[in-house]
Structure formats: C-alpha cells, structure tokens
C-alpha cells in the first residue's frame, strides 16, 4: 500500500471533495500523526480542481486507522500553528543595522 502525506492546507482543499465519479477523498492520520491519502485517491484522480494531487509523492506506509472529525482536524491544525509559534519564538533575531 502506498500513501502520500499532505499538509493542513492541502487537506482543506480536498476535504469533502470528490477525487473521481462518486468517490470522495478520505484523508486520515497515520500512526505517526501524518495526514495521508492513499494511492487509489491519487491514481484515480479526475477532479481537475485539485489536479496537484496527482503530483504528490507516493511512499510505502503502514496504515492506521481513524477518520478525524472536523473538530479533531481543527485541533490538528492548532497543533501545527502552535508549533510554528514556538519555532518563531525560539528563532534567533539578529539586530538590523541601518545606515543613515
């Protein structure tokens, strides 16, 4: 089984969207906490509104298994934002020298 990891923004774009006739994306979290979709959703893609999906890199992955609710996805997004904030806070800020 191959899967592709997607980020929060990509997830927003495909959430509740069709990837082909009568087939909806179902992004899930794998056991490592990555948001993933599967090779069938990539290989059978016909929805040109999300054509970027076909260029996702597929990798072998063990599967996990729970579909998140909207609330859980929001919680996952908040985690990403909080992680970014931590990164920003710990980033070394160099003074800017301005020549007058």
């Amino acid at each position, binding site marked *: *089984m191959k*899967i592709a990891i997607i980020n929060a923004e990509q997830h927003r774009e495909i959430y509740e969207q069709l990837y*082909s*006739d*009568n*087939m*909806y*994306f*179902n*992004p*899930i979290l794998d056991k490592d906490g990555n948001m*993933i*979709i*599967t*090779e*069938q*959703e990539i290989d059978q893609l016909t929805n040109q509104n999300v054509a970027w999906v076909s260029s996702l890199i597929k990798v072998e992955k063990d*599967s996990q*298994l*729970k*579909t998140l*609710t909207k609330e859980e996805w929001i919680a996952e997004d908040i985690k990403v934002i909080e992680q970014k904030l931590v990164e920003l806070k710990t980033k070394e800020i160099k003074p800017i020298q301005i020549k007058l």
Partner: protein
Amino acid sequence: MKDKLYITFLPPTDVAIWQPETIAYLGAAVIPDDTSLYFGGTAYQITGAEIWTALDACVVGWKTDLGLTLFQNNLSTRFKYIYPRIGGTAATHALNLVDPTLYTGTFSGGWTHDGSGALPNGTNGYMNTGFIPSALSVTNCSFGFDSKTDTNGLFSDFGGIDTSNGDVNMYTRVSGNNNTRLAGNGVNSAVAVADSLGLFAIKRDNTLNYKAYKEGSVLATHTVTSRPIFNSTIPITEAAQNANGSIIQYSPRKRTLLFGGLSMTDTEVADFTTTWRTLETTLNR
C-alpha cells in the same frame, strides 16, 4: 389454387418481460439490454443482454425464495438495500437494487472497482449506505455481504455502532472467529470460522438471540443479554465500522454484495445465498 390465409400471432406489447427492480436498477446503471460489451478482454467479459438475463433470474429467484409475487415492485417489502455490484464502477456499485433512488452509497477513500466487484484498500476505503438501523425493528432484521477475500484480522465489513441505542457489526474473521454484534450489550459474539470467503449474514427475529450464517449455513445462535431495542442514529458503513460517527477498522476484503432488511428464516437465508451464488457463477466471480 386456393388463397392461403396466414395468421401471425404477435405478443402484446404490454407484457412484462423483466422484474421492475431489474429495469430500474439496470436503467440507473445505464446498462442497456443489448450486445454492448462490458469488461472486454477480462475473465468477467459479458454483454448487456447477458447481464439483464442473469440479474433478472436472480431477482426472480429471490422473489420465489421469499414468497413474493413476480412482476411486482416488492423486494422493498423484505429489504431496505441490496447492492449487487454490477457494472464495475463506483457509480454502479453504489446503486441499490431495491430502489435505485434510495440509499445510494457514498464511497470514500481508496477503492478499486471493476468487473470482479468492489475492493476497498483496507486503509481508508469505506462506503456509507446512509441507512440508519432504526428504520428496522431489532427483532426483525438481517444484514449480510459476500466476501471474496480470505483474511484474518480486525476488519469490520459492515457496521453501525451507537453505544446508547443498538449496534450492528460484522468482523467476518478475526482471531479465527466470526465476530458479530446485533443490537447486543456492547459485546461481540464469536464463533470459529475456517475462512472469510462466502456470503456472511446475521439476522434476528426475537428478543433473546440472533443467528450468524456463512454461505447459507448457520454458524451460531448468539444469546443477546440486553438492549432489545434499535434506536440507533448511526448510518451503517461498509468495509469499515461507523462507531458513533468515527470510521474505524477498515477492511481489505473484496465484496460483491451488501444487503440489509427484514429477518429471514434459515431456509430463506440458504435459498437467498444459493440464488445469489448462481448469479455470481454466471458473472464468473
């Protein structure tokens, strides 16, 4: 020479040839009764006309098995949904033979559809029937599916779990057991089973127990100790379990049939299975 009189008898044009359900289902699937070829070059190659003949024979068989009048739109008096997976696409596999305008399935995640049936990927593929069990009485219901894959694991092949109001679930084979739940007390009932191939069903017709079947034979009679009610608001999903709204335990088993409806007797389950198997043989799957 005397003139000869030729009399030709033409059949009246309003005589029904097909069962109403066959006409509605294959009409919705856009499979014409002609020489159009499906799944050409595969083991499942078949013409539209052959599909019509085979499916209609199955519908006639089921109606005969269940004592229903032929040429009446009456499968709905015994079933809520039957998905026979004919046509080889997600659109056709989502159609309900009982009434193609009701409980059209919604596929999500990874599936492969072709002439051999519908194969979920076991990672995120499932189908929502949209059917809520409370539309049936817990003491008068049956559910089942036809499995084409022999695996042993914690995979739910159909299920809707509402822990407050009644459960339906089928672990076809896990730890060597057929492990099911039918409005029980939140506990599955298990019975040893040799493999996960064939038509598996559960049915209940009383407050005390329910039965599990494999390919028309009784696997077990399971005692139900509590909750003889069926107020679930959780739709039944296929190839995964809808556990209070969360989709879990995805199954990798290929399937060609999913059904749910009123209870059946042991004989009816056996006959229903035999009739279905005849269609499957015709379709070479």
